């Protein structure tokens, strides 16, 4: 935190300087190279009660990417952000998103206890917040 005395005084001196009542921009930028992309995955399974967990997601994604791109695919780092029932939010490096999505889509899935499991890519974006904000819009129309 920037609570120490020198930084705090610098902070106020900047914000106090030209400001009166009017609003104004102090600094702007455009995010050109987002570091990560995010994807919402859904488990599609013949077993209706099947749910996802952290390890399963990693092993499914790993299998899918290995099948698609071999060792290169298996090396794509995937971070599991949240798992809830059949849904899962993951993070991948932005340049790898194309490969990740293609791998997941092309994956034939696994068979566990006679039930076929595949992953469906529901949505992806460079900005997690807008995905979170848009999540659940379907329920609006179905209600």
């Amino acid at each position, binding site marked *: 935190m920037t609570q120490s005395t020198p930084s705090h005084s610098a902070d106020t001196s900047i914000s106090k300087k030209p400001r009166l009542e009017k609003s104004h921009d102090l*600094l702007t930028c*455009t995010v050109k190279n987002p570091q990560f992309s995010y994807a919402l995955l859904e488990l599609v399974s013949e077993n209706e009660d099947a749910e996802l967990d952290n390890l399963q997601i990693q092993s499914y994604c790993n299998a899918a990417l290995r099948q698609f791109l071999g060792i290169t695919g298996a090396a794509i780092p995937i971070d599991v952000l949240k798992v809830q029932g059949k849904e899962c939010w993951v993070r991948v490096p932005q340049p790898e998103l194309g*490969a990740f999505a293609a791998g997941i889509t092309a994956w034939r899935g696994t068979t566990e206890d006679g039930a076929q499991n595949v992953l469906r890519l529901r949505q*992806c974006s*460079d900005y997690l917040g*807008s995905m979170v*904000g848009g999540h659940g819009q379907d329920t609006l129309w179905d209600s």
Partner: protein
Amino acid sequence: MFARAPPSIYQPSKCFVTYGSMGHIDTKQLPYKSKPWSSLGSLDFVHKVDLLIPQEHYERLSNVLMLSEGKVTIDNMFTLINGTLTMYLEKEVYERAGLTGKPYGIKGDRGLKPRWIVTHDLRSPSMFHGKKGFDRLVYACKKVLNQPMKWLFSDVGQSIDSGLLEKLSATRIDVKPEVKQHIQTTQVALNMPPSILAEGDRTDLELVTSDLYEWLSLVRLESPRIAANDDVDPYISRYKAPDGTDHAMEVCKITWQGFMNTNWVRQLLAETITHHSSQSWLSFSATELSTNVAGVHNELMLLRPPKAPEEYLMWEIKRTK
């Protein structure tokens, strides 16, 4: 080869970041032309609004006015004004609920079916889990007062926006705030480092704000990765929260989901900012209803840093055409 191909699976968006000062806010006369108000106004229909505030400030902010569907004299009806929950109940429901209340109406005119009124101050110190009165209220809500209700609500001091309500009743969609309390996380540095502003360093601004945007998004997602005690194996996730302290912090999230117009959202933001303690931070986001095939949502997210009540950091996510 494959790995470096530009993503063709979604319509790319751009993120515009602004750090600025919003000046004094007069909730009676909101500015329309200046940021962040103009940015908010440029959104289409709003689908979801998320408000994040530190947990300890939640109870003080709960000046929200709520009104359930129904008539005082006929149905079971509920109102919530300045934290006081008032329930107008039929005799039969009142008896089943097991709450203490008073008869309602003029003496002598109550007839054979007296109605009852029950009042609870939800902000009083006794209104916590474990206290008798509160547990009894929770029990009553679970067992007796459990029919789905339609709610109208408005922020304090505001008359209910009739345009919004017209739309709501026409489409039969209810916008009601949903509160998620005690989201566990760590204390992240939310103030803009003064060196970035002093030097006008855009590269650093992009880095710092990208991390902050990701963290705030994870809070909205209620991801377990941001919790102070999240010790997930690096094989599962290598997410690291932005710099700060390791101290635990609790955040409260209030979500409005449905179909809202930007005037209403703008008023909500203004009321929230003026009523919230100037020492504390808050984050406000509004996501557009997506009407395009790709399902891309335009969004605006705003962070008011702690101890800088007139400053703001804003992210605008826009679909590139």
